């Protein structure tokens, strides 16, 4: 059945070999989007912390963090600004590995990711488990550059990429969901690209 409204003469110009979420197009570049200046973080000052609803917070230095077991990840990523990028090449530490180092309180259900520079974004805890999320340290075999979120970036590829907080420094476990930076500005609390949950109005 033809759509009820269509733009006469418009047709797909860029065929993609991949299945694209609604409204997305494939890019082979790696566009940069952030709300303010790129923070530069000295590695000897860098720390990463798990805190909030845990029996005891856990903090790593850069050296300690890099000594954790690392894995390769090849996720497809989807940005709310409509680009998707397939088969990206990352190496980093799985959230499952990190979570072995803390004892979560039973009421912990949500997470606030916080970045150097003050950026925040919220996620359900379940979306960080079972191989679904990692802290990326290298991209395409090189240390992650500052504009793409280096030295370390949270990567949660099954959600829109603003949930993959650049310049990550902590994860805080919470009982209730709270909006982060873009979520307070009207973006979706969850951000499922396959349901096109771009803005709060798109959430059920």
């Amino acid at each position, binding site marked *: 059945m*033809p*759509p009820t*409204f*269509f*733009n*006469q*003469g*418009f*047709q*797909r*110009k*860029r065929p993609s070999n991949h299945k694209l979420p*609604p*409204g997305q*197009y494939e*890019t082979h*570049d*790696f*566009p*940069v*989007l*952030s*709300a*303010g*200046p*790129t*923070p*530069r973080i000295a590695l000897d000052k860098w720390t990463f912390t798990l805190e909030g609803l845990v029996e005891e917070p856990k903090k790593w230095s850069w050296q300690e963090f890099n000594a954790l077991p690392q894995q390769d990840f090849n996720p497809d990523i989807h940005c709310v*600004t*409509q*680009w998707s990028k397939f088969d990206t090449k990352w190496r980093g530490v799985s959230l499952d590995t990190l979570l072995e180092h803390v004892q979560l309180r039973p009421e912990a259900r949500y997470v606030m990711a916080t970045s150097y*520079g*003050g950026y925040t974004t919220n996620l359900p805890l379940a979306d960080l488990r079972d191989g679904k999320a990692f802290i990326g340290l290298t991209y395409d075999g090189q240390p992650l550059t500052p*504009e793409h979120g280096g030295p370390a970036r949270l990567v949660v590829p099954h959600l829109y990429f603003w949930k993959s907080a650049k310049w990550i420094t902590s994860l805080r476990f919470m009982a209730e969901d709270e909006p982060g*930076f*873009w979520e*307070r*500005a*009207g973006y979706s609390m969850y951000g499922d690209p396959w349901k096109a949950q771009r*803005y709060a*109005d*798109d959430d059920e």
Partner: protein
Amino acid sequence: MMSKLDWQRATVTAIHAETPRVKTFTLSLPHWTPHLPGQHYTLRLTAPDGYQAERSYSVASPPEQPDEIELTVEAVEEGEVSGYLFEGVEVDDELEVRGPIGGYFVWRATATARPLLLVAGGSGVVPLMAMLRHRQRAMLRNPTVLLFSIRTPEEVIYRQELEAMTASDPTFTLLLDYTRQAPDGWSGYHRRIDTALLTEVVKRFAAAPECYVCGPTGLVESVATGLQNLGLPAEDIRTERFGPTGG
């Protein structure tokens, strides 16, 4: 009751060529809501086979211009959406849009507005133009500088209007920076924006300005970092970038 983010069918009422690669589309909206300068709309094209493509475009018009929006669009090479807008759209055609969207790269003008430093690269001037038009309509006189980096003279979007604004408002300064080819006899900036250039621009302000920087990633990265190195706080530097891809 329609939510502001429902899709609506707008009618194209005017198409104006700004430069050889940039056009402004005026869209009449059945459900217009006032936007904040800096916000954008998402435009959706649907093919007869149901395929859809969406792109976001900054609003160029001020909120004082009711019932319609102006979207200024740059033709991207091989652009699926911009290509169709440039080749396939005429006045009276209908286009689906939703918005206004965006709550951070926006300027809320008040009578006590702080000085404003706007830095644009190419079509990054579009959301900044909405701020300037709004400022003009609201008759604000906060010291304001637009530093506008373009490669060549023919790429100056909104040139006439910006020059008229300069002539009529002594508190507004337009600084053009031609990075490749400057007009004959040009005595202004003619190089990529660097620290020395930013230092000169920031010195024009008696009080620290709020900064809005929009353009290609390279320019935004270097300007935002440069402004921070000059001592401006990160929270006063708002950025919007477009990468090498687009639509």
